[in-house]
Structure formats: structure tokens, C-alpha cells
């Protein structure tokens, strides 16, 4: 009801293209962000497997590393094209943003370009260098992928955090007159957005990998191959989860200060006041919160460690400057935090079992939790992204440029949106199918029969096969 009103009002106010343009950006970015996370963190996990494989002569880990690198190749290829879609959309959907601020936010993107180059080049070397390069040399060709993944992510997040906390430039009469690259890159929000997103990428990837093998274990495939695959994903992700919760908490407190209206939407703070309660769940409509659980003073406590802390409400800005769908922001925030704690719980459970009994929990519930942990991490990450993007509305560059003013004036975004939704549905399904195809093929071969990349030297027959395939 409220959403419909807001949507209609937005259309009436700004012309027809901003809503479909936002929907298209949300679709393409929401899709790409999963692949981006895998692109950032998967190489590290593959390298971890290869490291353990080479160091301890662990054949299972080496087989996993080799197989994962194939899956990584597919995912990075899809990520490369969906990322290109976003580059085009910056201009095709948001020419107003690029015209005004292209000279500022382009610089971090340019830096990202460098790391994207290194990532693509070394991915190719790593992927197609198995067995042709010597073991440790091959390992080291993978390290630049992981490193450039992190720096590339930092660069892209620099742009997003700059949109939340713009700075580092001077303007006069609507034209940018000077830019300080360093201040643009390390803007005020970058300090918390960068670690939050990079940790999220590692959690998404780690839990997604773990989820695949936990599902296999639940189906009775209780072998060393599956336990190793699970541990290689689960352990790094679970170790990083508490850090992520700490970073997220810090970020929320910073947002309460930097973007009080976004924070007010996250926590249902309608009026600026002290002793603000925390709402868990609940839908805000017509000035009321329905079906929410109220914890008195909690929000003030979280923001300033005391019940008397004043929290800014959204009443401080006129309605036109408030985000459109408050309940969506709040519920997404709650889901993200809730899932974060669920994943923390899974990690603590495993850590306890390991501490007391040197084993992973045998309970079926733990493996169920493990199997859904990948989806949970992805959902949490998407929710967090909704919070930061929708919470910034109606601004595209906070307090400087509205999303409506940035949107294209071209008609026909509905057409491209329709095509994009159809195309991405096919693309997503195809990617999952290809990964399942690979998994099925590997299962047929079995871990023991598979050629071990740097294990025993390949037999003469194998070498011959390799040579004739040149």
C-alpha cells in the first residue's frame, strides 16, 4: 500500500524512468554481487586447498583445489560479463550521475580496472597452468588473483562508500574543479564499508563451499573428500564471522552519526529522542509498528552505550528526503543481523566440539545448518546491500544528487529491464546447471581415481594423452 503510493508519487515527481532504472540496477547488481563475492574470495580458498595439498602432500586437498579452480573459472567468466553490464549501465541508466560526478568516482573505478586486469591474467595462468607449471610456481601464480581480488573490491567499495559519504573534490557552478584521489578513495564511509564487504565476500564463499559439501554429507557421502571440502570452506568463514559482527556493529554506529536518516529507517526511529527502543521485526505502516518485538532502551544502548543516548529520527528531514520503503530497510537489516548470529552459532558449535572432542559435531542439525549456511550468507549479504542502497534513497550521491536527477531520460528502460530479468534468470539457471554438471562428472570419477595434479607423476600413458591433445 505504502510502497505503491511512494512508487506512484516517485513516478509522478520524476518522470517514468527512475523506477525501472533502479529495478534494473538492483537486478543486475544483486546478481553480480554474488559472483563478485566468489571472485574476491574463492581464489583464496582454492589456494588454501592447494597450499595444504602441496605442504602436507594431501591428495584430497589437491584434487579439491583443481576441481574448484574449474568452478572458479566458470564463475569468474560469468562475473566478468555481468560486471561489464554494470559498467555500461553506469552510463546507460545513470548518465546524470556520470555527467556530474564521473570525473570523481571514475578514479577508484580506474584503479579497480588495474586489479581486474591482474585478476583476469593470473586467473588464466592459474587455471590453465595446472600440471604444466611446477607445483609451487603454480601456487604462486594464484596469489596475485587473491590479492588483486581484495584490492579490486576495495576500489569498487570506495565508489559505493563515496556515494554515501561524498568528499575529496571541489565544485563550482555544477562543474568539478579539482579532485583529490586519495580522499575520494579513502572517504569517511570506506573505513567501515571496505572491511564489511570483503569479510562478507569471504563468508559468502566459505559458507557456500561448505554448504555444498554439508549437503553431500547429509546425503550419506561421509568420506574424507567431503569432510575436507566442508572444512576448507567452513573454517575460514566461521573464523571471520565474529570479526564481521564487530565490523558491522561499528558500521551501524558510524551510520547513526553519518547518515542518521538511513539509521533511523534501519531501526524505526520516527522521532529524534532518548531511551529509544530496539525493534526486532515488525512492519511500519501509517505511523504504527505491527508485529514487532520491542526491547526498551536497546537502540540507545547500542548507539551510545547508555539508555540516555539521543538517536536522530527521520523527522529531521522533510518526507521527500526520506527513504521510500522504511519497512523493507528495517526487515532487511534484521534478517542480515539475525543470519549473522545464526552463522556465528554454527561456528561456535563446531569450535566447541573441536575443543572438547577433536571432531566436527555429529548431530544432523549441525549439518543441516551447514548445508543452509551458504544460502544464509548470500541472503544476509543481499539484505545488507538493500539496507545500504535503499537506505541512501532518495539520494544517489548523499545529499548532493538525487537518484531521479541521475536517471536516464531515455524511454524504454522497461524493455531493457524485461530483457535483463529474462536473460539473468536463464544465466543464473545455466550457471547452476553447469556447476551441477561438473559435480556430477566428478562424482562419477571419484576422488581416488582422479589424476592428482602434483601427486605421483603422471604415467607415460597420461603424458602421451596430454601431448596428443596439444
Amino acid at each position: 500500500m505504502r510502497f505503491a503510493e511512494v512508487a506512484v508519487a516517485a513516478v509522478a515527481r520524476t518522470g517514468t524512468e527512475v523506477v525501472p532504472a533502479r529495478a534494473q540496477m538492483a537486478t543486475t547488481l544483486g546478481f553480480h554481487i554474488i559472483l563478485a563475492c566468489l571472485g574476491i574470495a574463492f581464489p583464496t580458498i582454492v589456494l588454501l586447498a592447494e597450499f595444504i595439498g602441496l605442504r602436507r602432500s594431501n591428495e584430497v586437498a589437491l584434487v579439491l583445489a583443481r576441481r574448484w579452480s574449474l568452478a572458479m573459472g566458470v564463475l569468474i567468466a560469468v562475473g566478468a560479463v555481468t560486471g561489464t553490464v554494470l559498467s555500461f549501465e553506469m552510463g546507460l541508466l545513470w548518465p546524470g550521475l556520470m555527467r556530474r560526478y564521473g570525473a570523481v568516482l571514475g578514479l577508484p573505478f580506474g584503479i579497480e580496472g588495474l586489479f581486474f586486469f591482474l585478476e583476469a591474467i593470473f586467473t588464466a595462468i592459474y587455471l590453465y597452468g595446472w600440471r604444466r607449471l611446477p607445483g609451487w610456481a603454480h601456487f604462486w601464480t594464484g596469489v596475485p588473483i587473491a590479492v588483486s581480488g581484495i584490492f579490486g573490491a576495495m576500489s569498487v567499495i570506495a565508489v559505493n562508500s563515496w556515494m554515501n559519504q561524498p568528499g575529496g573534490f571541489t565544485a563550482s557552478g555544477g562543474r568539478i574543479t579539482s579532485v583529490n584521489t586519495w580522499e575520494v578513495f579513502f572517504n569517511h564511509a570506506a573505513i567501515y564499508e571496505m572491511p564489511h564487504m570483503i569479510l562478507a565476500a569471504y563468508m559468502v564463499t566459505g559458507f557456500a563451499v561448505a554448504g555444498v559439501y554439508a549437503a553431500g554429507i547429509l546425503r550419506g557421502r561421509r568420506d574424507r573428500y567431503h569432510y575436507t571440502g566442508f572444512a576448507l570452506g567452513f573454517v575460514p568463514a566461521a573464523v571471520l564471522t565474529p570479526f564481521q559482527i564487530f565490523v558491522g556493529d561499528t558500521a551501524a554506529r558510524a551510520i547513526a552519526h553519518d547518515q542518521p536518516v538511513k539509521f533511523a529507517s534501519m531501526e524505526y526511529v520516527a522521532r529524534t529522542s532518548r531511551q529509544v527502543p530496539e525493534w526486532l521485526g515488525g512492519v511500519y505502516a501509517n505511523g504504527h509498528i505491527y508485529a514487532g518485538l520491542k526491547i526498551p532502551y536497546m537502540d540507545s544502548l547500542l548507539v551510545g552505550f547508555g539508555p540516555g543516548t539521543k538517536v536522530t529520527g527521520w523527522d529531521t528531514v522533510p518526507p521527500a528526503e526520506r527513504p521510500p520503503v522504511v519497512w523493507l530497510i528495517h526487515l532487511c537489516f534484521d534478517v542480515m543481523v539475525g543470519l549473522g548470529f545464526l552463522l556465528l552459532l554454527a561456528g561456535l558449535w563446531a569450535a566447541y566440539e573441536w575443543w572438547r572432542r577433536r571432531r566436527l559435531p555429529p548431530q544432523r542439525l549441525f549439518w543441516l545448518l551447514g548445508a543452509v549456511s551458504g544460502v544464509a550468507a548470500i541472503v544476509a549479504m543481499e539484505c545488507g546491500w538493500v539496507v545500504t542502497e535503499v537506505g541512501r534513497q532518495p539520494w544517489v550521491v548523499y545529499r548532493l544528487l538525487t537518484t531521479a536527477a541521475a536517471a536516464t531520460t531515455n524511454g524504454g528502460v522497461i524493455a531493457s529491464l524485461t530483457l535483463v530479468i529474462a536473460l539473468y534468470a536463464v544465466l543464473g539457471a545455466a550457471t547452476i546447471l553447469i556447476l551441477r554438471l561438473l559435480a556430477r562428472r566428478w562424482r562419477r570419477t571419484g576422488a581416488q581415481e582422479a589424476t592428482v595434479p602434483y601427486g605421483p607423476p603422471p604415467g607415460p600413458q597420461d603424458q602421451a594423452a596430454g601431448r596428443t591433445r596439444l
Partner: protein
Amino acid sequence: MTAAAAVGAILLASVTLYAILGGADFGGGLWDLLAGGDQRGRAPRRLIDESITPVWEANHVWLVFDLVIFWTAFPHAFAAVMTAAALPLWLALLGIVLRGTGFAFRKEVSRLSLQRFLGATFAFSSLLTPFFMGTVIGAIATGSIPASASHASQPAWTSPTSLLAGFLFVGACGYLAAVYLTGEAARRGDRRMQAYFTRRVQAAGIVAGALSLATLAELHTSNPALFSRLTGRALPLVIIAGLCGLAVLALLTAAWHNRVLVTGARVIAALGVAAVIWGWGVAQYPVLLPGTAVTLTHAGAPHTTLVAIIWLFVAAVLLVGPAFALLFALQGRRLLYADDAGLALAGVPGGATRPPAGRPSQQPASGSPGSGSRAVVLGLVAAGAIVRALIRRRDG
């Protein structure tokens, strides 16, 4: 040289690198498309697949880099182009998505029908991107992009010059790919494929040359100022482009047995394409959008941004240059190729082997000798028809 001119040169250099590296990967799609049925097309498809596989993603990054430099250094021109030429850019983007995913997925499937379908997706979409990119460049060159474009303009990119530029881009990509593949075949000592792709170099070279001349002739009417500069101060580059084209044809035909010269022809072909791009750049300098007041210095970015881009490019040369050199060196020594791991682990002793159907395998391909010449004829007929139609349209 001012910072703006330097950044203009950087943008043109990045575009050139995308054209001669990424363009050839699209050209590979063209030859994959024309390679014929499963049996006949097996050997060329295999060569194309093995040549593109390790490098296409890295080459593709040049496009992203080009876009970023364009919008950072010249945001006003970028916004105008992205608005006025929105439709062909969307279609080029569609080509990029389908090409990349079609190519990446084709490797991983083993069923023949799926491989055919994904291969066709890869091959057809390889035509979309260069064609529509070409029409956008054509629209810019003819001065059809207004400085403050607020709406997409279909006439901008459907003018004869723009369409010719689109076909020229497809032809040039095919030409580059054929030259590179001839060199690759020569390096592998595969005489049959060397002959196969030499014929395609000849066909594509003639088509691309004819299309270049036709585009130039069209510019005479659609943008006389640009035409006079192309035949004026940019004339040396135009001549170099023509000479490079002739030299490649001569080398591949006459120096058939000299492996060094045949592989070296790739550099000359790339130089020829680069000369065309730089000829356009020199002719248009310092105007960014012909027909408007948008020049390199008046496109919306402050001096500090331009200086930052120069540093960025220096960093790119220092960081990315050696990495590319390593990639190409490893590829040149054939240390990089997709092996059996993805394809049912074929060839593993004792493994449940299933030969990857339809994909390049050890089987000697039975190519019919007439296929190459038929493609040549087809290509020539198509190009001739386009040129004739355009001439008739101008006369009428």
C-alpha cells in the same frame, strides 16, 4: 602536450589495445560460425577455442578500462554518447554477455546438442558486439551525437556511414583473428589450418579493405571535415594502414614456409588496424564529438582528474604490461591450455572415459577442400551486396 591531449592519447591507446586483442577474440567467433558442420569445423574450432580460451577475459578487461577512462576523463561526452546511442550499446552489451557465457559454458558441457547450441550463441553474439560498437563509433565520427543528448537517437547510428562502420568492425575483427590464427597454426606446424586461415585472411582482408574505402567514401558526404583531415594530416596513417594490409597478404601468401615471417605478420596486421584507429583520432583531434563544442579540454573533467588518469596509465603499463607479457609468453610456449580435467577426464588411464563428442579430439578432421573458398565467395558476395546497396541508395 596538454594533460587533456595526453589523456586523449591514453584513451585511444586503450581502445587500440581492445581492438587488436579483444577484437580478434570476436573475430574468432566469426570463424567459428563459418566453420561448417561438426565434422568439417572440428579442426578450426579447436584451434580457435585453444587460442581464445586463456586470453579472452584479460583482453576483455580493456573494454572496461576504456569505459572507465572515457567516463572519468570526458564525463560530458560519455553521458551524451551513452544517452544518444543507447540502443546499439545495449545490443553490443547483449553480445558481450552471450559471447562470454556461451564460450565459457561450451567447454563444460559434454552433450553434443548443448555444445552446438552454446557454440552458436558464442559465435552469433561475437558478431553483435563489434557491429554495434562500430555503429556507435560511426555515429560519433559523423557528428550525430549532440552534446547535451537527452534522448536516444536512432538515425544517429543507422546512417550509411555508421552501418558501414559496423560491418567494417566485424570485417576487421575477422581479419585480425584470421591472421592470428594463421600464425598460431604455423607455429604449431599445422599446414592444413595454416592454409585454411590464410584463405580467410585473404577474404577478410579484401572485405575489410573494401569496407574501409567505402566508409571513407561515405564520410566524404556525411562529415566532409573529417574526410578532408583523414586525407590531409592523417593521410600518412591511412597509407600505413593500407600498406600493412597489403604486406600481410603478401607475407602470408609468398612467405608460406617461413614460420617467423608468418607469425610476424600478426604484428603487422595489428599495426594496420592500429593505424586506422589512430588515423581517426588524429583526424578528429582535438574534437571529441564532431559537430559540437565538446573537445578534449571541454568534456567535464578537471585538471587534477586528468593528471590522476595519466598516473593510472603509468601504473597500468608497469603492472599490467609485464603480467600480459607473462600470459602471452606462457601461451606462446603452450604452457596454458584447457586440458582433459573439464571434459570427463578423457584420456585418464583406467578412468571412465567418454570422448567429448563434437569437441576437438584426436580424430583427424575430414575437412572438405572447398569449404574455405566457399566462405570466401560468401563473404565477398555479402560485402559486395552491402556496398552496392549503399551506392545505389546514395545515387537515388
